[in-house]
């Protein structure tokens, strides 16, 4: 029973993947209806859902997918052209299958409606559709390329009943690639031969798409007067190694395994034999061997890929692994520290070795959690398509960098914020076609969704060529909401950041899409919690760009360890630019204004000592860590810069969930805890 549940779960997972694939592919086909490859992919995905659905007892899904498959087959054969209606229906079907998969049974009516609509699309009469559906499915089940071995051993009397074997072979040749080997070992000496009898027999290797019964049909008239054996020796998708001649002989029961081995021992390698008898020179053999090796390597690789790509690991197992590796990194740091203090050569060499191995292990583990961000892009294509149709706008979503990899958790948590941002672009950003034409822009709006690496971060850009943010409207709204005073003079950049305030919306009306003012603050919060940053750029009439800067991974970061009083703190290295000294003299010169002149640039600094209420004695010479916070330089005054640190991030837990200045804690080499500063919140 449990096994069954497990199997169902696997089916669901797989079906969900297929559904995502269907969605992506359909949208691809919509853009390029001639893409035969995509159509085939779509067909295969639906076929898989149907096939495994029937196998695991999801009969409703199987039945429904069957109708979809039938229609798609027509598309594949070119009998039905790709229209918007068809795309809509396929998408609806996909949603319906999804609902079925989730166990939503109330929508049976919907299913019937979709089936009816699908059938209406098909030019032929309904009955015919059903009939062809049947034969289609038959063909589909066997539509794999199969290689048969046919042993044809006719009686001596074959010719007597007027059969011409050549005609039979010709018929076989029409079915597919066919190699015929006549066997003449039974032919007697000329003296004894009876010319009216047939002494020949044949071995035929046929590679064809047809089912075994079709082949049997060829021999139907001679069935009684011959021995006929038809075996499948290879099927498409079989990854079994190519068989050697000896194995084939054993397979065919011509020889036993021992006999073959005995014979093999006598044999020299073919290459050596050929060289010995000077038929080919050594170089040629070398080339041939290289070729053979290459082919083998490619095959092995393919085999490996097809094996590894099917490994599924539960996400929580991976999480545990990452946690354990984190602990290991911490313990290793302690070991290194200990060996350093101990001064024992043997110990420190082991510690160094461990350090290297653990670093490698860490990188490997982290990479396991990485997923290409493109997996979420498919959803957005659908969103853009559906929403723009609803709002009567023409919008194209262009995606770049789908292969950019991010931590699984980051991707999952970014799905909603990205959805919000794209929705905003569709609803508020891109104008209606009329307005766009008036403004002299192309009637079709474009949203660019781009992901790219930037150091330890991934930057996701959402760019639209719409109307841009209305600075005046934002300011007015902010005044009305009491976020800024009426005569506040704030820059455009500062104004753009106001849209992230909770409950902030400049939309006059609340639409089904957006305008309730929730959303942007959620976006901001999510990105903050991921230790990322968001930047808004906008030009009136030309569009808006949102840049989300996200850390590659959440579990381990490179940090700069600093000390203030007796406490240790970690500043994420990604935001650190440089460290400078703060002498008493410099501090005095700025007359208590906490501003530093850094090579002509004015850099404000914050005393962590004051901010954290640390009262211990301060040293004469302090240090300033210059950080980059949203493109602005800000210094943090610390007592001492200790050095770089591989920081395993630990949550501070619910007890400190309101601490805005800290993003977590980490454990140092000596076992004490250091707090990780959230420079974005501090600045």
């Amino acid at each position, binding site marked *: 029973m449990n096994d069954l549940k497990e199997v169902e779960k696997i089916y669901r997972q797989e079906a969900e993947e297929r559904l995502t694939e269907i969605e992506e592919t359909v949208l691809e086909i919509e853009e390029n209806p001639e893409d035969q490859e995509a159509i085939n992919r779509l067909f295969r995905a639906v076929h898989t859902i149907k096939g495994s659905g029937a196998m695991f007892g999801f009969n409703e899904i199987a039945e429904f997918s069957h109708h979809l498959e039938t229609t798609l087959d027509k598309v594949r054969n070119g009998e039905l052209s790709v229209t918007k209606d068809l795309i809509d229906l396929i998408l609806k079907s996909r949603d319906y299958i999804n609902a079925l998969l989730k166990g939503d049974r109330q929508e049976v009516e919907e299913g019937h409606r979709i089936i009816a609509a699908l059938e209406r699309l098909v030019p032929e009469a309904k009955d015919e559709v059903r009939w062809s559906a049947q034969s289609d499915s038959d063909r589909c089940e066997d539509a794999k390329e199969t290689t048969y071995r046919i042993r044809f051993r006719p009686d001596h009397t074959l010719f007597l009943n007027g059969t011409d074997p050549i005609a039979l072979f010709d018929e076989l040749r029409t079915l597919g690639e066919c190699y015929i080997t006549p066997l003449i070992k039974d032919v007697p000496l000329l003296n004894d031969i009876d010319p009216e009898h047939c002494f020949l027999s044949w071995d035929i290797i046929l590679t064809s798409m047809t089912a075994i019964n079709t082949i049997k049909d060829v021999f139907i008239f001679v069935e009684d007067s011959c021995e006929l054996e038809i075996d499948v020796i290879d099927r498409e998708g079989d990854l079994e190694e190519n068989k050697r001649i000896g194995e084939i002989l054993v397979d065919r029961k011509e020889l036993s395994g021992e006999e073959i081995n005995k014979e093999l021992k006598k044999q020299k390698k073919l290459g050596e034999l050929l060289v010995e008898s000077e038929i080919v020179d050594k170089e040629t053999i070398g080339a041939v061997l290289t070729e053979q090796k290459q082919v083998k390597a490619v095959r092995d690789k393919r085999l490996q890929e097809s094996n590894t790509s099917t490994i599924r690991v539960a996400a929580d197992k991976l999480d545990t692994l990452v946690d354990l590796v984190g602990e290991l990194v911490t313990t290793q740091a302690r070991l290194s520290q200990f060996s350093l203090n101990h001064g024992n050569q043997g110990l420190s060499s082991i510690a160094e070795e461990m350090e290297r191995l653990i670093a490698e292990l860490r990188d490997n583990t982290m990479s396991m959690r990485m997923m290409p961000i493109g997996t979420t892009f498919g959803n957005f294509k659908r969103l853009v398509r559906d929403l723009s149709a609803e709002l009567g706008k023409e919008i194209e979503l262009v995606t770049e960098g789908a292969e950019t990899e991010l931590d699984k958790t980051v991707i999952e948590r970014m799905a909603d914020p990205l959805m919000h941002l794209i929705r905003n672009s569709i609803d508020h950003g891109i104008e209606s076609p009329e307005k766009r034409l008036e403004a002299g822009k192309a009637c079709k709006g474009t949203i660019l969704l781009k992901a790219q690496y930037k150091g330890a971060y991934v930057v996701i850009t959402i760019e639209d060529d719409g109307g841009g943010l209305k600075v005046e409207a934002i300011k007015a709204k902010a005044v009305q909401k009491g976020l800024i005073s009426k005569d506040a003079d704030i820059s455009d950049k500062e104004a753009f950041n106001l849209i992230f305030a909770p409950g902030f919306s400049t939309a006059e009306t609340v639409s089904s899409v957006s305008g309730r003012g929730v959303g942007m603050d959620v976006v901001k919060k999510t990105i903050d919690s991921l230790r990322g940053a968001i930047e808004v750029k906008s030009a009136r009439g030309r569009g808006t760009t949102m840049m989300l800067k996200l850390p590659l991974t959440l579990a381990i970061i490179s940090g700069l360890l600093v000390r203030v009083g007796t406490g240790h703190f970690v500043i994420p290295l990604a935001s650190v630019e440089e460290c400078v000294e703060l002498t008493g003299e410099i501090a005095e010169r700025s007359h208590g204004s906490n501003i530093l002149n850094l090579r002509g640039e004015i850099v404000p600094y914050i005393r962590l000592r004051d901010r954290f209420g640390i009262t211990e004695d301060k040293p004469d010479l302090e240090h300033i860590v210059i950080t980059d916070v949203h493109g602005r330089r800000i210094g943090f005054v610390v007592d001492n810069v200790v050095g770089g640190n591989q920081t395993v991030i630990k949550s501070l837990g619910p007890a400190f969930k309101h601490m805005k200045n800290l993003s977590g804690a980490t454990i140092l080499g000596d076992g004490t*805890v250091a707090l990780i500063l959230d420079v974005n919140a501090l*600045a």
Partner: protein
Amino acid sequence: MSVMEIIETSQFLTFKLDQESYALDITQVREVLDFAEITKVPRMPEYMRGVINLRGGVVPVVDLRLKFGMTRTEKTVNTCVIIIILNIEGESILLGALADSVQEVITMEPDQIVPPPKIGTRLNTEFIKGMGKKNDEFIIIIDIDKVFSLDEVAVYQSHEDGQALKDGRIVK
């Protein structure tokens, strides 16, 4: 109200705060550690002493004496950190509590436990599950889940929150 909860034989860990004996239900105690270096977390109420490293995890430590209105716990050879499992709103939270000294694990029958007096203790009687009697000495059984409601554990600093708007969330 709480005496009703103690209807079967239970085991308790007893410890001392300022000469007085207290007890915690043993099921809520995970372990007892020696007093180690505590990392102070800035801008926390005084009773929140900071965080410690518990085998790779970060656990907050509170000063029970300060929480109960006594003077700050000073470090002695007997000072311990009791790691407590708090059950707050369905969540299990680990919390370290400082104790002047940890005594023993004792078994008490329900009839050894009486309801808390309405007056005469330094504690708010809400926090007390009951008074246990052992060798003519009273032991205060603490309802630790009540001592730390979620809001209290998640120390909220309104001061900081008020600054947030100016401080880096909006204007930047």
